[in-house]
């Protein structure tokens, strides 16, 4: 029997339905399986998995300082995860978050040291500057997708490298943002642009509250506003959306604008709250981890926060793991990839899990993808 949904009405390229495919239960199952597989890998290399996982746990949550570091690494992952999730909700794969983070950090640092504004306002302007540059940088692939049908995966990757080059030029020897001295960094930002540190003796800044506040905003936007609804409809079925009078071109650009803005604010918060200056590679690949965060977070803001905390814990725990168990801290990348693999096996696991799910009724109606009937009802 031929799959009729694919045979007769092929979906528009790029409009993917990821919204319902990874369930909370799958997340738990995926993480557990990944930890087991990781343990097997460790056993193959004659390592004690219990010792390694214990070191990882201690390093992530063992003390006030490590707990603060976990929240600290989670902060950019929340923003980045939301960025990727908003893209996916509209059927777009934003692989350019890393570039958006870098440019957001760059602009925030520039405003932070070069514009002496009153306290309060200064911080706000710096945050906004970083967000806006990210938003416009993200809107470019949106525009290219909408009007030139160029796949966003290619353009977002290309724009990453262009962003890295711009950033590198800015702080390289002779660059316009280079501080005095040997190191390729920008000058330190003024105190009025710094995010407050909230836990004495640690680097934790109020950035985590901004991240949580933005999470609420994005939740409200996606599920409580007309625009957010339209965005999801386009992601669900671009053709049906056009039928219902929604411009998928506009929504594509708009979704990438929001997504890029979230990447930009991630970089801004990182610079204004942690490093206080811009330097190349200040982001250790948060933009790439963000993809994993979004997928593990079921493309839902609450899930994104949970997944960001998990990956943030892995990241901060990896340092102690390397020191205590003499395992490369990059072991956490293997774990991350395993988590992705095991949750991506959704298609085969889905029928089994869905039966469980319907009984547990874990999925609220608000986050389920809009149905065809709903679409027609809402169309005007």
């Amino acid at each position, binding site marked *: *029997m*031929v*799959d009729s949904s*694919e*045979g007769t009405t*092929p979906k528009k*390229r790029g409009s*993917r339905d*990821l919204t319902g*495919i990874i369930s909370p239960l799958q997340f738990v199952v995926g993480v557990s399986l990944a930890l087991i597989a990781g343990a097997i890998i460790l056993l193959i*290399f004659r390592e004690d998995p219990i010792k390694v996982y214990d070191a990882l746990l201690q390093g992530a949550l063992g003390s006030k300082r490590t707990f603060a570091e976990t929240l600290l690494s989670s902060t950019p992952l929340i923003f980045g995860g939301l960025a990727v999730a908003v893209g996916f909700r509209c059927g777009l*794969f934003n692989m350019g978050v890393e570039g958006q983070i870098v440019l957001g950090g760059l602009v925030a640092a520039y405003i932070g040291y070069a514009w002496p504004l009153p306290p309060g306002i200064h911080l706000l302007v710096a945050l906004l500057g970083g967000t806006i540059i990210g938003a416009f940088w993200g809107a470019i692939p949106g525009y*290219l997708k909408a009007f*030139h*049908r*160029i*796949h966003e*995966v*290619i*353009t977002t*990757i*290309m*724009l990453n*490298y*262009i962003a890295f*080059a*711009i950033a*590198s*030029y800015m702080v*390289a020897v*002779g*660059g316009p943002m280079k501080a005095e001295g040997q190191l390729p960094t920008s000058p330190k930002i003024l105190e009025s642009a710094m995010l407050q540190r909230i836990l004495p003796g640690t680097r934790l800044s109020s950035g985590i509250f901004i991240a949580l506040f933005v999470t609420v905003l994005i939740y409200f936007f996606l599920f409580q506003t007309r625009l957010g609804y339209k965005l999801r409809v386009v992601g669900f079925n671009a053709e049906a959306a056009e039928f219902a009078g929604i411009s998928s071109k506009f929504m594509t650009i708009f979704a990438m604008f929001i997504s890029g803005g979230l990447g930009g604010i991630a970089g801004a918060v990182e610079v204004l709250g942690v490093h206080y200056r811009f330097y190349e590679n200040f982001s250790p*690949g948060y933009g*790439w981890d963000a*993809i*994993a965060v979004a*997928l593990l977070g079921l493309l839902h803001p609450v899930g994104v926060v949970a997944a960001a905390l998990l990956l943030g814990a892995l990241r901060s725990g990896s340092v102690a793991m390397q020191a205590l168990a*003499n*395992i*490369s801290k*990059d*072991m*956490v*990348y*293997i774990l*991350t*990839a395993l988590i*992705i*693999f095991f949750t*991506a*096996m*959704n*298609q*085969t696991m889905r029928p089994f899990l869905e039966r469980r799910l319907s009984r547990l009724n874990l999925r609220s109606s608000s986050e389920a993808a809009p149905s065809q009937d709903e679409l027609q009802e809402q169309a005007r």
Partner: protein
Amino acid sequence: MQNWLQALNLTLLLAAALRSATPILYAALGGIFSERSGVLNIGLEGMMLISAFTAVVGSYFTGNPWIGVLAGVASGLLTGFIHAFMCINLRADQAIVGTGINIIGVGLPNFLLLKIWGQQGITPIVERIPEWRIPILADLPVIGPILGQQSPLVYLALILVPASWFLLFRTPFGLRLRSVGEQPHAAETVGISVYAMRYSGVLLSGVLAALGGAFLSVSYLAQFVTVMTAGRGFIGLAAMIFGRWNPVGALFACLLFGFADALQAAAQAASVPIAPQFLLALPYVLTIVALVGAMGRATPPAYVAKPYEKA
């Protein structure tokens, strides 16, 4: 003032361009086989990294870089199999699986590096594949310095371009491969196994990406450095689209990228008064501009990224 212009030796520049183009070309060819069969492969970068590392391990323990290349190819078959199994049998989202392979490409080599050598980020120097001097060809003026003395893996890549073209467009195998990427249901009805053809495409893709990775680590350099592919797998994907999923077109795209890369390195060495970062960004800007210009014609295979359910 013209000193830097003289320092830029054109033949040396073109020879360097060819070397820079080679790993990208392997990735692009790999992408073509996978996508022509209907499977998106954004995991090329990770496949290259794992192979680059495996090749160094092979060369280190046997002292023979060719065994390293073989080990790399074996790793490519393995990563290709993982991608194929997840995407074809389990019908997992192909972009997600590729992302997972890219992440593992960062983590696994570094994990093993510390295990094997007890050091981080960089392996010891290993035996590398020396350049071959092609008799007659090397003695020709102009062409000699460019083409006459290159790594055998550079020659292999160049030979693989017409070979891949022939395989794809002039053999029954190629026709079947393309048919499952364009119309899997129709292909199935005439007795072509969609799964088998897609497995062939993805496994070939893994092998080709692996050759690109091995070239980097045991021929271009003689060691593995963490994330040494530096995005070449992604650039290969761009070259594939640029070349419209055709090996010959991809070759020209790769040569363009290779030239920009070589120019950037040469310009830096000759202290040309242009910021090297702008030359670095040039190929990416060019890609976007070219894609904007070429659109309408650059249509991917119809069933790329769409899982196929057996009838």
